[in-house]
C-alpha cells in the first residue's frame, strides 16, 4: 500500500468532485490517499488482515458509488471511517467464529506468531503483533477510541460525534484504554523476557 502525501481540504474536495463526475484518476487518488489509514483502523479494530482487506474494499466501493451523497461540510475521512466501521461490524457479524474453540485456535495462532517472530530476532514485528494482541484485549469502545485518538489523531469531540457518545464518556474510555494497553504490553514484555531467558539457557 503506497503512502500518500496529505492534501488540503479544498484539494480533497476538488478530487471528490472530479471522482463524482466519473474521473477514474481522481478516484484512484482518493483511494490512495485514504486506504492506508482506513486499513490500519480496521485491521487494528478486528485484528484480521483478510477481514480488513474485504472491509476496506467494500467501504471504498460504497463511498465511490455514492460520492454524490457526500456532504462537503464534513471530513471525507470521517465519512469513510463511518462507512468502513459499519461494514466491519456487519462483516464480523457474518464471520463470527462458530465456537469458542475457533476463537481459542485463532488467538493461539497469533500468540505463536508473536513468539516465532521474537525468536527470529524481528523485535519490531513482535512488538507490532504484541500491540495488536494488546488492542484486542481492550473493549470495543476503548480500542476504537484509542485508535481514533492516537492512530488517527481525531479530537475528542469528533470521536464523540462519530461514535455517538458524550465527550466525557469518550475521555473515560480513552483513559482506561490507555492504561489497560500499557498493562497488557508490560505483561507481554515480561512473558517474552522469560521466554528469551529460557531460550538463552537452553543454548548455554
Amino acid at each position: 500500500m503506497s503512502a500518500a502525501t496529505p492534501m488540503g481540504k479544498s484539494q480533497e474536495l476538488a478530487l471528490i468532485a472530479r471522482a463524482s463526475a466519473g474521473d477514474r484518476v481522481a478516484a484512484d487518488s482518493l483511494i490512495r490517499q485514504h486506504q492506508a489509514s482506513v486499513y490500519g483502523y480496521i485491521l487494528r479494530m478486528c485484528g484480521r488482515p483478510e477481514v480488513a482487506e474485504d472491509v476496506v474494499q467494500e467501504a471504498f466501493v460504497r463511498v465511490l458509488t455514492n460520492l454524490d451523497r457526500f456532504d462537503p461540510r464534513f471530513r471525507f475521512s470521517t465519512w469513510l471511517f463511518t462507512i468502513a466501521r459499519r461494514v466491519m461490524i456487519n462483516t464480523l457479524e457474518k464471520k463470527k467464529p462458530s465456537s469458542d474453540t475457533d476463537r481459542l485456535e485463532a488467538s493461539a495462532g497469533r500468540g505463536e506468531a508473536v513468539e516465532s517472530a521474537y525468536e527470529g530476532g524481528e523485535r519490531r514485528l513482535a512488538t507490532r503483533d504484541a500491540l495488536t494482541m494488546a488492542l484486542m484485549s481492550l473493549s470495543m469502545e476503548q480500542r476504537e477510541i484509542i485508535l481514533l485518538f492516537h492512530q488517527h489523531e481525531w479530537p475528542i469531540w469528533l470521536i464523540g460525534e462519530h461514535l455517538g457518545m458524550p465527550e466525557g464518556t469518550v475521555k473515560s474510555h480513552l483513559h482506561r484504554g490507555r492504561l489497560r494497553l500499557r498493562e497488557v504490553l508490560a505483561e507481554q514484555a515480561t512473558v517474552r523476557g522469560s521466554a528469551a531467558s529460557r531460550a538463552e539457557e537452553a543454548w548455554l
Partner: protein
Amino acid sequence: MKDFNDIRPDGGGAPAPMLGADSLINRILDAEAEGEVLEVRELVRSGEAADAAFRARLDATRTAVGELSLLPRGPDLTARILARVEASDRPFVVRPERVRARRGRMLAACGALAVLSLVAGVQRLWPDALSWSTPSRPVTDLVAAARSDVSVTLDSIQGAFAQVGTDLSSPVSRLARQATDASAGRGRVAIALMPLPSEEMAVATPGVGDGFDGADVRASGSRGVLALGGAEVYDSRLELGALGSRLATDLPVRGAQLSAQVPGDAPKAMLAAVGLGPVLEPSARPQALMLLGENPVTCAMHRVEPERLTDEMVDGPRGGTSPRLLLPWLDLSRLILEADGKEPRPQ
C-alpha cells in the same frame, strides 16, 4: 515520597480534583495531544516530584500509544476497488443521473407489470385470444357426447372426421344418426373405427364375453362397425348390438371395431379410422388416429403414415381376444408422438 493527592494539575490556586499517577499520565497525554506544552511540562514535573517511578510509567504509556501512530502495512487495494466500482451497477454516477436512471427503471418495471397484467386479464377472459400456437382442433363435444348420447357422438365423429380431410371423411360422414349406448359415461372413452380387416388380419375385441368373437364382425361383410365404450373393459356386445344394424346401412366402408384399454399415461381416448373404398385405397392399416383428451385443447388429430406402421402394430397377436391386442393402438399413438418430436400437434 509525596502523595499524588497533593498535586494540583492546573498549577494554580483554584481547587481541582486530586489525581492519581495514572490520572496524571492521562492528563499529560491529553495535553500533549492538544499541544499544551507548558501544561505538559508542569504536570510531568509534578509527577516526578511525587514518585521517582512516575517517569518510567509515563514513558511506558507513551511507548504503548506511540506505536499506534505507525500504520500497519497492507496491500494496495486501489486496482481491486476500482475494478469493483467499474463493475458495479452505476459507477461514478452523479445524483441527478442516478435519480433519472432509477426513475427510468421504475417506469420500465411498471410498464412491464401493466402489460403482464393486461395479458393475464385477456388470457383469463378470452383464453384463445392470445394463443401463439396453432390451435388444436377441439373435439370436446365428441368426448362429452360419448359419455351422454351416442347419437350426438356420431354427429361429432362426423365432424371430427371432416376435419381430417376429404379423403377420409367422405365415407365416414355417412354414419348412422341414431344409436344408443349403454356404456356411455363409463369413465374414459375409447373409440376406434377401422375397416373390416382382410382375411389375414385377425381382429379380436377385448373384454368380450362368451359367445362373441371377431368372426361375427367379419361376417358382417361390408358393414362398418363403430364401437364406443369405456376404456377399462369394453363390452363390445352392447355397442355392436345397438349400433351395428344402423351402421350397416349407412356406412359404405367395410369396418370392424376395436376398442382400447387406455393406460394412465396414454391419451384418455382415441379415435382411429381408416378409409376404404371409393375414396381411399383399400387398406387394412389405420390411416388416421385421433387422440382425445379430457381437455379439448390437447386433443389432436393425426394422420398416420402407413409406412411407419408394422404389420404387428396393426394386427396385434393373431386371433387373440385378450386386451393385449389393443397394444398396437397404443404403440401407434406413441409412435406418432415420437414421430412428431414431442406432444401431439394438430394437423
